[in-house]
C-alpha cells in the first residue's frame, strides 16, 4: 500500500472510508451491450491482420506512386525533347 504524506489520523480514516464507499458504488449497466472476451479477441486479431496487411502494402503503394511520378517525368522529358529536336 502507498506511503502517505500526513493528514491527521481521523481525516485519513474519513478519506479511506469515503473511498471505500466509492469503491463499492454500483456501476450502471452500459447502454450498449459490452463486448465479451471472444468477440474482443476476434476483433483484436482482425485489426492486427489488417494493420499487418497495411504494413506490407505500404512499400508497394509508395513504389506505385514513384512509378507514376517517374512515368510522368519521362513522358514530359520525351515531349520536351520531341519539340526541341
Amino acid at each position: 500500500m502507498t506511503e502517505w504524506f500526513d493528514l491527521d489520523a481521523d481525516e485519513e480514516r474519513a478519506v479511506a472510508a469515503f473511498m471505500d464507499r466509492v469503491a463499492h458504488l454500483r456501476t450502471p449497466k452500459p447502454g450498449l451491450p459490452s463486448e465479451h472476451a471472444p468477440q474482443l479477441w476476434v476483433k483484436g486479431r482482425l485489426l492486427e491482420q489488417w494493420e499487418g496487411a497495411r504494413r506490407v502494402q505500404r512499400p508497394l503503394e509508395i513504389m506505385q506512386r514513384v512509378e507514376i511520378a517517374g512515368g510522368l517525368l519521362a513522358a514530359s522529358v520525351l515531349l520536351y525533347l520531341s519539340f526541341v529536336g
Partner: protein
Amino acid sequence: MGRLDEAAFSALHAGTSRALRAYVYRVLGNSPDAEDIVQEAYLRMLRADVPTGSEEHLRRYLYRVTSNLIVDRWRRRKFESDEEMPETASAPPRYEDDAAVAKIFAELKPRDRALLWLAYVEGESHEEIASSLGLGRRGIKVMLFRARRRLRDLLQAKGVLVNS
C-alpha cells in the same frame, strides 16, 4: 515469454474488466464513453502484441493504456484546463446516500479521482500509480497528497468530516 493466447486473454478479461470499467466510469464521471474506453484498451493491448508476463504485468499495462485513453478524452473535452470546482458550501451532508457519495467524488478533478482510485481502490504503490498514469514517481507523492487534501476539504465542506 510467449504471445498472449485466447485462453489467457479470456482469463485476463474476466479478471479485470469489471474493475477497469468501474475505474473508467468513476474517473470520467458517469460518462457514456466508459464502455468505449474499456473496449479500446483491450483492443490496443491485443494489437500491441504484449508478451505474456505475469497477470499483474498485463493488468498494469491495461491500466496504463486505459489511463492514457482517459487523458485523451479529458483533453478532448478540455477537462485539463482548470476545470471549475463546483460550489460545495451549501449542500447538505447526505453521506448515507450512494448518489451523494458519487456526486461528491465527481466534484473532484478527474486527475484527483484517478489518483485516489488507483491508491485506495486498487491499492497501488506510488511507482505503480506513476506507471499507470504515465507520470513521474517523485511528483506522484505530492499530487496524491494534494488529492487527498482536496477530498478532505470537500468532505469537511459537505459536513461529512467535522473540522478538527
